[in-house]
């Protein structure tokens, strides 16, 4: 008799909810025969899509609840089969909560967009949930194989989702490009893992830490290849070329999800890998990260200036933000890691918000993605224009918005670590970024609309998601750490949560 391993169910609760949710949605969508009637309404693709979205949000909310409970308890639980593969600690729970919230917002933003574009197929929400399942597994993985499984489970559904608008050539192009380059990156990552396994004889983070020798060429080559794999996933220069094409071609909610959730999950996994498997103090790594950071900030922000397509512009801006995030990794200190965690939260909301406006402007069968489409929007759609202005200001890092607080934290941490050039690059590139971010508000207010808006209303899901994003961006802009919800008396010290969570990586 082989003794079964001890598995406490609460470790896998968030993953379980999202995975089961994905399956429930598949069954539900298969049972919702189009044309029959349910609850007194004929089942149209749009109706079925809405029901699927509600199921998805229900399961994501359950996952969010268990994650918040786990975070509040502060326990560190390990899921162990033959080796420990997955750990639920505060760092993982922090990232998981962010991912799940991003998932809920993505679903809310997708409902009417899918109907507008006529791509309301059932597998959509199931794939989103499957991808989130992988992302959650990735952020908690404490074994190279866990990282691999999580990464693949996260990206394979996105290959499909990027090509979800299958009648449009651009979408197909995005899916194929992402698939080819993503597989390529995964292969490099896997090669790096193999080399590390060869050098240290283990795949477990803790054991790698003990056996790791920074002077061994094989081990360092392995680490380098793993970093390249991660750099592909977070779209950092010089491994960024896929991002603009894929972001442009994929359906806007998927672009939003990719730019936020994939980046957040890959970054968190990278932080955990560097902190617990290699040691953040390894000097060679800091140089590599510094080069990545500077290149990403400069290339991303300069290339964004000449873009005429909003999704492409946001893609380059996300490359620039990846560069800014890498500054925290260069410092290798708990403060830097906490600044990254906070930046990821802020970035998630402001970027989802910006894409949310693009999504809300999509009209029957086509997206509103050219910069010129925003002309005169302040007159025709004042609410959306105001929201877009707020998100643009926040992405640029203007005080009073969350984007400023995020960048400010990073700069403070980097200066404390005696790195003066990285913050200077960040500030200079932020100034450059103002040009393309502010171009949209300028167009919205100072130019006449080129054509009357063909869609005037806004779906309730989009409205709620945009309001939430705007509220968080403003709230964190003024109260990054001492926030109180006025009527509930609930304290929201987001920065403290971020710094508490990274102590799990550096403790013990």
């Amino acid at each position, binding site marked *: 008799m082989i003794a*079964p391993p001890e598995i406490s169910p609460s470790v896998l609760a968030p993953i379980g909810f999202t995975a089961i949710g994905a*399956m429930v949605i598949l*069954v539900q969508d298969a049972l919702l025969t189009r044309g029959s009637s349910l609850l007194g309404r004929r089942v149209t693709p749009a109706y079925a899509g809405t029901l699927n979205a509600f199921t998805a949000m229900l399961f994501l909310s359950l996952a969010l609840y268990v994650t918040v409970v786990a975070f509040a308890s502060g326990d560190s639980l390990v899921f162990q089969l033959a080796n420990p593969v997955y750990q639920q600690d505060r760092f993982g729970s922090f990232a998981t909560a962010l991912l799940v919230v991003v998932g809920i917002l993505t679903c809310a933003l997708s409902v009417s967009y899918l109907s507008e574009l006529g791509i309301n197929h059932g597998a959509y929400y199931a794939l989103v949930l499957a991808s989130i399942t992988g992302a959650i597994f990735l952020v908690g993985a404490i074994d190279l194989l866990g990282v691999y499984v999580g990464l693949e489970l996260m990206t394979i559904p996105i290959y499909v989702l990027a090509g979800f608008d299958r009648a449009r050539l651009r979408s197909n192009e995005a899916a194929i490009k992402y698939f080819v380059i993503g597989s390529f990156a995964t292969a490099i990552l896997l090669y790096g893992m193999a080399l590390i396994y060869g050098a240290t004889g283990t795949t477990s983070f803790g054991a790698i830490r003990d056996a790791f020798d920074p002077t061994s060429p094989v081990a360092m080559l392995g680490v380098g290849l793993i970093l390249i794999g991660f750099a592909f996933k977070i779209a950092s220069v010089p491994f960024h070329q896929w991002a603009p094409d894929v972001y442009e071609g994929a359906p806007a909610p998927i672009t939003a999800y990719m730019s936020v959730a994939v980046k957040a999950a890959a970054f968190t996994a990278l932080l955990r890998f560097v902190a617990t498997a290699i040691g953040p103090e390894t000097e060679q790594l800091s140089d590599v990260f510094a080069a990545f950071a500077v290149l990403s900030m400069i290339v991303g922000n300069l290339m964004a200036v000449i873009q005429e397509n909003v999704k492409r512009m946001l893609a380059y801006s996300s490359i620039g933000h990846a560069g800014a995030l890498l500054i925290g990794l260069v410092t290798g200190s708990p403060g830097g890691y906490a600044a990254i965690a906070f930046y990821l939260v802020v970035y998630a909301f402001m970027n989802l918000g910006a894409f949310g406006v693009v999504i809300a402007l999509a009209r029957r069968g086509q997206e509103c993605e050219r910069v010129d489409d925003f002309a005169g929007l302040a007159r025709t759609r004042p609410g959306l224009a105001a929201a877009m202005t707020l998100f643009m200001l926040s992405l640029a890092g203007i005080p009073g918005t969350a984007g400023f607080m995020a960048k400010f934290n990073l700069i403070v941490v980097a200066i404390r670590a005696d790195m003066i050039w990285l913050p200077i690059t960040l500030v200079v590139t932020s100034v450059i970024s103002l040009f393309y971010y502010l171009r949209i508000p300028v167009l919205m207010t100072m130019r006449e609309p080129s054509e009357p808006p063909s869609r005037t209303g806004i779906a309730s899901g989009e409205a709620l998601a945009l309001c939430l994003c705007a509220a968080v961006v403003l709230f964190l802009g003024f109260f990054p750490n001492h926030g109180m919800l006025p009527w509930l008396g609930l304290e929201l010290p987001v920065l403290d949560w971020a710094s508490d969570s990274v102590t799990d990586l550096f403790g013990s």
Partner: protein
Amino acid sequence: MLTEYTGVLVILAISLVLIAVLLGIHLRVGPRREFPSKQDPFECGERPVTSPRRRIAVKFYVVAILFVVFDVEAIYFYPWGTVFRELGWFGYASILVFTLPLVVGLFYEWMKGGLDW
């Protein structure tokens, strides 16, 4: 330890000899009448050399994916089956967890008409 594999070696030798003998007899005794279509790699009416860039019904793709999925599933089932008793209920639950998503996927595909030709 290598002696355990003597049987394999014997089988290998016998089969090599057998092949040589059969082919040899064929070469010596068999009649030969050659004509062009008999010289094709596959003489079954299929043109052996064509352009690969032709359209193939996407349904084959669905069938191929299904085949791969259930083939891989079978690979996992075999080792599980050999230690079924030792693993007990835990092993049974694990394999259910493994199978459930596949069944859900099959159900979805079936209901969506992926198996209707």
